């Protein structure tokens, strides 16, 4: 009886997890499916017929292409700035004991726990009161704010397990601080820094709410979709959505594979070293 119950429990969990995965992936399946739709009117909500025409030229709507280019420019700049600023802060937090640590941690934590609408509204209040015209620059300024916190958290996670003796060894061998940082520290924390940059890029490209408050007349990719949502979203948006999903899965899967292969190699090396002893 008990065994039967355990058997049922085991498979029940598998079933529930499977249903969960279907739920998570269903919208993506719909997006991909409707990228092959051939809608009769402006609205791409019901299935009309199969076509690959939108996959052949997904970027042929000028406004959509411009919005995408703007989004990518902002995301590149925002992720570079936020990653540099965030890495510096995490170096200070992990490596140094200093007065004002608590305040620093609070300033990192607060933007993460503020709803986007409050952040967007307060930025617009700032720009309105100071008479700053909103546009490309204000979007960039705003995006860096919400990216910094995620960069600090990501790089910190990598720094915590860092073996400081490697840096001491470099210094003992005559390298100065800058050389040590560039040749030892940076390569070792690079996976964390890279992850922070990728995460920032993703957050920036996807941001709608804060951008909506700070964009002026500049249109980013999410703002283009928001505008299009009222009059009918072009099928090309589905094509781009599907592409984003494939790229995201690809990048993350490569990351996973690389780290699995590395771990396996390290284990093999360690075993061989143990045998040699």
């Amino acid at each position, binding site marked *: 009886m008990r065994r039967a119950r355990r058997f049922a429990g085991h498979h029940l969990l598998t079933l529930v997890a499977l249903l*969960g995965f279907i739920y998570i992936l269903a919208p993506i399946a719909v997006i991909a499916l409707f990228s092959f739709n051939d809608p009769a009117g402006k609205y791409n909500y019901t299935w009309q017929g199969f076509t690959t025409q939108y996959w052949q030229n997904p970027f042929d709507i000028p406004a959509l292409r411009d919005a995408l280019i703007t989004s990518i420019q902002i995301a590149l700049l925002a992720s570079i700035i936020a990653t540099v600023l965030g890495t510096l802060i995490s170096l200070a937090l992990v490596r140094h004991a200093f007065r004002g640590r608590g305040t620093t941690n609070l300033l990192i934590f607060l933007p993460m726990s*503020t*709803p986007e*609408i409050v952040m967007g509204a307060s930025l617009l209040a700032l720009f309105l009161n100071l008479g700053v015209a909103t546009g490309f620059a204000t979007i960039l300024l705003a995006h860096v704010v919400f990216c910094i916190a995620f960069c600090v958290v990501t790089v910190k996670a990598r720094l915590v397990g860092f073996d400081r003796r490697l840096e001491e060894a470099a210094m003992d061998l005559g390298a100065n601080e800058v050389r040590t940082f560039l040749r030892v520290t940076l390569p070792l924390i690079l996976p964390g820094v890279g992850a922070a940059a990728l995460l920032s890029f993703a957050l920036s490209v996807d941001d709608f709410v804060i951008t909506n408050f700070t964009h002026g007349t500049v249109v980013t990719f999410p703002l283009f979709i928001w505008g299009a949502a009222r009059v009918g979203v072009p099928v090309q948006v589905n094509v781009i959505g599907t592409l984003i*999903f494939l790229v995201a899965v690809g990048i993350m899967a490569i990351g996973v594979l690389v*780290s*699995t292969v590395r771990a396996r190699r390290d284990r093999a090396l360690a075993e061989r070293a143990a045998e040699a002893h």
Partner: protein
Amino acid sequence: MGYLRRHPRAVPYLLIAPGLAWLAVLFVVPLYYLVTTSLQSGDIYEGFRLTWQWSNYGDMLSQYRPQLVRSALYAAIATVAALLIAYPIVYFIARRGGQWKSLLLVLLVAPFFVTYLIRTIAWQTILADEGLVVGVLRDVHILAPDGRLLATSFAVVAGITYNYFPFMALPLYVALEQLDGRLLEASSDLYANSVRSFLRVTLPISLPGVFAGTLTTFIPAMGDFVNAQLLGTPKQYMIGNVIQSKFLVIVDYPLASAGAVILMVLILVGVAIYARALGAERLTG
């Protein structure tokens, strides 16, 4: 370089200075301006001036109480729903994933890299009157023949639940990943059945993840307006819809700012009460 060697204490401050300056000027100062704007009066033609117009808060609270209550309610239901959906999936990945663990996690998170608005529009398609889901539910008489899913509270809550899912799943995963399988074996050896093992071992160990996940889901959910706009009707509008339309459409900046301040304060108070109730200090160390 020489300066730094002579003053090693300056190093951390130089490291944090640029980042904190950015956050001070573009996060803290804007909050100050949000509060002062909320106390202004005037209009877009004459301009707005600080007149300590406290009545903006009274107006906001009395006129938009339904939207405020609805925001808290929708966010709470969506948070609980996300927890109930995420827990078994994440438990499955953490405990049964084996060598596929990382790839399953990738599959779970990747959908959320697809632009938020595209995902929400996909839910429009799924829940639409002509869609498959409504058709099946009507056929089995769960929905009345003219019953709808789109443009209802259900659609809005479902959209919020879905869109903030990773904020629930990732902290839960981190907590459940740390669960040592031997603890469950020990509990089973001591004749606990699986329900008891879950309640006495798994659940307590995962509580920090539950705490972090519910907070990181509830906070953005409470301020959301995209789901109510795209999946609901004005009857489902939340406080976020009021703030964004007052700011960007009606251009009543003081009232909109008062709304944003109220939302922020409600969240801070709510989080403080919740943290105390769960004993956050014990949980997060």
